[in-house]
């Protein structure tokens, strides 16, 4: 299947004298992490299906610096930002879509004052738009009888007030969407943010991802939907810890759409 993926790079486009309508910012997790790569590919399938004119930076992409910034390393963040902005501006990028809410937040809110002003959307917003424009058709009802609960990523929800796009997209699958007791503004973090993904947690009595997975499992879901590669890893680990991986799958919204459209 993967050989069918069409993934042009900005360099290709430039050589062909074309300007794609949107840049897909893959992000470090989406590029290197085995689990997150599946999300990246699912999103590309959707882009291909909807005939979206997009491109990636490929090897010219580098970490946004978001994690470094949250770890307190403002130097490293700004170095990364300035380098990325130079490349993005050289390609005259106007619009960016990404599957990673951390990149989304960073590009959208923290790049402008350093000279990088783009319209930045999260992939759930992008997919919502494709559905609204009728560019994605949902004929299959593969997920009709499934219970899906959505875990709000902090950097999409609380940090940027986007709660409806992921829910609207999930709604299009005709699945039964159930909410956890903590959701939207009160959603509990998966435990990965603020550079926690890359370190051992401080001493406590339970890991955050376990607590969050318990929230999700309380809704008796078939699928726990995520909108962030880091959340996905954390909740997947939580489900394994709870030994529920046979009954409950943890999928990104892009993967759920692919499943529901039988792509």
């Amino acid at each position, binding site marked *: 299947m993967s050989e069918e993926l069409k993934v042009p790079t900005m360099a290709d486009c430039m050589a062909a004298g074309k300007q794609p309508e949107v840049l897909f910012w893959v992000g*470090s997790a989406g590029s290197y992490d085995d689990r997150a790569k599946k999300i990246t590919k699912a999103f590309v399938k959707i882009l291909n299906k909807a005939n979206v004119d997009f491109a990636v930076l490929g090897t010219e*992409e580098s*970490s946004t610096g978001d994690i470094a910034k949250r770890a*307190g390393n403002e*130097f490293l963040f700004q170095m990364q930002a300035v380098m990325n902005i130079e490349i993005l501006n050289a390609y005259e990028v106007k619009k960016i879509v990404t599957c990673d809410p951390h990149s989304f937040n960073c590009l959208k809110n923290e790049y402008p004052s350093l000279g990088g002003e783009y319209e930045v959307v999260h992939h759930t917003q992008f997919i919502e738009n494709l559905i609204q424009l009728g560019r994605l058709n949902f004929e299959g009802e593969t997920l009709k009888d499934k219970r899906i609960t959505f875990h709000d990523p*902090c950097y999409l929800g*609380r940090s940027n007030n986007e709660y409806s796009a992921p829910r609207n997209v999930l709604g299009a699958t005709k699945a039964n969407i159930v909410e956890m007791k903590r959701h939207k503004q009160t959603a509990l973090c998966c435990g990965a943010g603020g550079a926690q993904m890359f*370190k051992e947690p401080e001493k*406590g009595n339970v890991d955050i991802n376990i607590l969050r997975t318990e929230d999700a499992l309380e809704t008796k879901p078939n699928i726990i939907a995520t909108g962030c590669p880091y959340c996905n890893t954390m909740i997947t680990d939580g489900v394994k810890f709870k030994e529920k991986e046979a009954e409950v799958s943890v999928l990104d919204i892009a993967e759920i759409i692919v499943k529901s459209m039988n792509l």
Partner: protein
Amino acid sequence: MQYILNVIFAILLLVGIGYFASNVRKLIRNIKLGINVDRSDNKSLRFKHMAKIALGQTKMVRRPIAGFLHIIVYIGFIIINIEVLEIIIDGLFGTHRIFAPLGSIYNYLIGSFEILAFLVIIAIVAFWLRRNAIKIKRFLSAEMKGWPKSDGNIILYFEIVLMFLFLTMNAADYQLQLLGANHYVKAGAFPISSWLILPFIDNLSETTLIIIERGAWWLHIIGILIFLNYLYFSKHLHILLAFPNTYFANLKPTGALNNLEAVTKEVKLMMDPEADPFATPVDDAESNETPVKFGASDVQDLNWVQLLNAYTCTECGRCTSACPANLTGKKLSPRKIMMDTRDRLEEVGKNIDANKGEFKEDGKQLLGDYITPEELWACTTCNACVEECPVSISPLSIIIDMRRYLVMEQSAAPTELNNMMSNIENNGAPWPYNQMDRLNWKDE
């Protein structure tokens, strides 16, 4: 005699308000110890934000029980303060119930004050039970032991005593009106005090009633002045500071962290191909400034809005009760971050007072002596604390500024984070993968 009482009243008022004003000056000076940050933009949006959050209490009601009780006390105190205006005029000019000629309007006013006072009493009893009898987790955290716990209760005692004094004063006044005592014009409606207090005093003599009425009147206004002055030493400052604090709050998406300008300068210099790396610093006016410190290790490194935040915090603990680190037993408590910041700021302020207006190095700082790195590193930057705060405080911004100090000034990040950062530096990803492999996923 009457004349002397008016003078005593005026002196009390002056002393009460004067001492409060001197503390307010101190408070403003301490807040100004923070570094500058521009919040003079978006005036109309800021007013709206303040009207909605501080005046309108929209975030309070997210927790319905506490929110409802709080609104009763809030409305009660604002409205009953109209009565304080009358008390001050009466006290200064020796009048009695100066607004009485308003007639039926006056009756409505006094009647509604009484009903509100009664509701406030009920709310305060409920608050006291929540703090002391019902084991609500957010009131039992480690940082709430000792003074913060007493502070919370003292405020409730103050309020309940003030309410009872108000009702006692009214009940005695009412009885004196019924007895036709001199000066006690028939005015006001007493829907609460007439059954709650009156039965206890209705067979007392006129003289005794006058003593009770005057006693309650004086104690009520003295109580209010003491309470006013208590604010500066208490978490209760929020009744005033909630307004400026919401006005000056960050209005950008909460996910946006500020970009340090000092760093931008350095980065631009580093990226500038024209810049001479071996150049000696130019000795211009700019280089005479003390070199900027990256991040914050003490209160003077925080900005004035963060310091205002610290004084505004009323230690309700909604932040801590939503913090994923705290919920999973880690040491971090966003409320403690705010309490520590205020405590340290007060300590710095006292140091300045004791040293003729200049801060003398005391060998202490916010980082380490108050807030430990363990707390700072437990934060997931999820913004739950910021979202929860009913008065727009951001504990997260302080945590980030202190992490910045740890990392950029002390290179004191946890080892795993140092590895992550050197990966980003070397190959543009938090993991040790080659940048040239970034697109490999396409063909896998």
